[in-house]
């Protein structure tokens, strides 16, 4: 008797679960996934709330990235996420593996409406952000650094340096400091001699380097006086200055990259997802984001709507964009495993 009852109960529970699941899958709010923190707060205010007010039912979640997470969502069948903001590597890998819907740009204003680098088969750029050289203006009053060569010049600028722990961005910076023209960085880095050259350059200041891992660390290192210069995300410098610091940014030789919006494969809310993407792609909406956080927009038509003063602080300002290079996603997808091994080996010596 107990077993039959158990069976009935299990059946009932399973039935209910399936019913609830399919009902949820059929009529679920649009679910948008971004990177949390101050950034997502800004997005909430500028993108999510107005859309909700306009009648698009949506919920937002945050995540910490990782292609494995996206794979698991797709392999699990009906994905609970519709629109996700991904980093460039996840965009390329996920698109190759068929985790995302191919985008129809006609529905979101056409490809020409966006920066060329923000257009991809599976994604549309959300923000542009930069790895820049950040320094403490209070510490370097007399003479400010102007590029990565100064970063490696510990005679003129004594003190420790902060760099991201890992080969990505570090090797590019070393090559630029060694005199490689920004446009040639990846060409040089693709050769074994180029890699040797980058590590040899890093040897010069190895003892002075403090390695950071999370984006919040470099401004802290600057604030605590642990380092006088560091590689850092430009938005973090902006945020620190808003809190009363006097940090400077050197755009020269900085590395920019783009985060993109993608629609998860098999999403039941594709129409609503396009509505969202069209809304966040519009210049008048994009123009509001940089005021909240100093990241660049992907629709060039938004720039005239941003106050000129603010524009100069963004990665997308022509003066800034002109002296920076795009972080090569293709190069790092191919080489991150090998160069990380090499980097770890070098760093431990």
């Amino acid at each position, binding site marked *: 008797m107990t077993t039959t009852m158990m069976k009935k109960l299990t059946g009932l529970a399973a039935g209910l679960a399936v019913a609830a699941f399919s009902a949820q899958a059929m009529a679920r709010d649009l679910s948008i996934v971004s990177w949390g923190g101050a950034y997502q707060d800004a997005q909430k205010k500028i993108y999510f709330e107005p859309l909700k007010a306009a009648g698009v039912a949506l919920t937002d979640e945050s995540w910490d990235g*990782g*292609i*494995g997470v996206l*794979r698991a969502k797709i392999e699990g069948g009906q994905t609970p996420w519709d629109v996700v903001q991904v980093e460039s590597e996840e965009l390329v*890998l996920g698109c*190759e*593996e*068929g985790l995302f819907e191919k985008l129809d740009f006609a529905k979101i204003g056409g490809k020409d409406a966006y920066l060329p680098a923000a257009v991809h088969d599976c994604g549309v750029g959300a923000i542009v952000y930069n790895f820049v050289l950040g320094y403490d203006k209070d510490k370097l009053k007399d003479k400010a650094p102007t590029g990565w060569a100064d970063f490696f010049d510990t005679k003129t600028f004594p003190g420790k340096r902060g760099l991201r*722990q890992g080969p990505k961005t570090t090797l590019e910076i070393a090559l630029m400091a060694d005199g490689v023209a920004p446009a040639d960085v990846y060409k040089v880095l693709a050769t074994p001699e180029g890699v040797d050259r980058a590590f040899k350059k890093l040897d010069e200041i190895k003892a002075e380097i*403090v*390695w950071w*891992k999370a984006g919040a660390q470099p401004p802290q290192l600057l604030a*605590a*006086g*642990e380092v006088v210069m560091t590689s850092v995300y430009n938005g973090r410098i902006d945020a620190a200055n808003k809190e009363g610091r006097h940090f400077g940014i050197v755009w020269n030789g900085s590395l920019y990259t783009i985060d993109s919006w993608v629609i998860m494969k098999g999403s039941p809310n594709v129409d609503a997802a396009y509505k969202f993407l069209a809304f966040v792609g519009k210049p008048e909406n994009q123009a509001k984001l940089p005021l909240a956080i100093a990241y660049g927009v992907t629709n060039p038509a938004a720039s005239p709507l941003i106050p000129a003063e603010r524009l100069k602080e963004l990665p997308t300002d022509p003066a800034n964009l002109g002296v920076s290079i795009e972080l090569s996603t*293709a190069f790092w*997808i*191919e*080489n*991150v*495993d*090998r160069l*990380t*091994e*090499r*980097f*770890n*080996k070098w*760093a*431990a*010596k």
Partner: protein
Amino acid sequence: MGSEVTATPQTTASRGDTVASRALLRQLRRAERRRQWGAFALVAPLVLFLIVAMVLPIGDMLRRAVDDPEIADVLPQVTRAFDDWTDHGQLPPDSVFAALAADMASARAAGTLPIAARRLNYAVDGGRSLLVNSARRLPETAPNWRDTLIAADPRWGELDVWAALYQARGPLTDFFLLAAIDMQRDAQGDLTATPADRAIYRDVLARTFEIAGAVTLLCLLLGFPVAYLLANLPPRRSNLLMILVLLPFWTSLLVRTAAWVVLLQENGLVNQVMMMLGVTEAPVRLVYNRIGVYIAMTHVLLPFMILPIYSVMRGISPVYRKAALSLGATPTTAFLRVYLPQTLPGLAAGVLLVFIMALGYYITPALIGGAGDQMVSYFIAFYTTDTVNWGMAAALGAVLLSATLLLYWVYNRLVGGGVRLG
């Protein structure tokens, strides 16, 4: 248990007694069985929990270290065609080239090619683009696939590339386990050492054991006197001291680690005090290096050393040492030859506990250490979350696990089986 009861009654008892004793026996057995089931039912949740939480995940991890399905799944024809390749000193026969071309076309259509490309990239520099780009360049038909493939990318004419593909044909592989101890197979399948600029994991493993060993030693040197004091002070004062030991013990690991970063940095309290006392002239570098890792890890793990030693010391009767003293032993001799041996079980438990916990440390070295102070778990985390290379993560885990078990076995031999874990 039942056999002890059955042995006696039948020989000596009369017929009536035998019937009665049989009934009694049955009852006894039933009671025994019930008790056994009861005992089993009591431990069942724990057993189930251990299976679900320990045995299955560890088993799965070990499986992933040797599991290599990608190439076989995505490129099935070439995996079969490899049977034709007999002389591994030369490029494979045409049939293998043709099979690869056919596989690449169908995998590209199915969108599964990147999975194989990722796997090939582990073994061959630029393996990802080699597979993806040549698949893009291949025509639909070709008179000779060997020439066509080599024309698409000259690297298909290299023996190393084919050897890597062959070695990745699955379903099982030793590739990841070998890589985790800085070994690899060459084109002929013979074991060779990984080139020096990429060999890293032996160093990492040695570093892991070095840090764990040093932290254990520091904990022992600091913890033993504290435990002794705790065990021998009058209760009122020892309780106060105990709180001082337990308070940090109850604080979150992350909070304590972050606090050490603040204390140890260049303008931190520790450096300021040292400069005030004239110990140093300029700030000493105490964080983002090995010194910081030792300080913070010792602080975090110290209670795990103090508590087992303390619990053993509490149980040591003072009369033995008094007897030794009254028989003419010097205090040092009495301590070394009478007291210390009695604390050995606590020492052994503390040392083992701290050492094994230290081996798996991740957060503290990651936050306080520099690039050269990262232990094995850092690399396991890197492969799981950053590059999603489960094979490598599992292989490193397996190597760490076997090294730990080996060490535990040696340790047990040395200490003489005095302590058992679990």
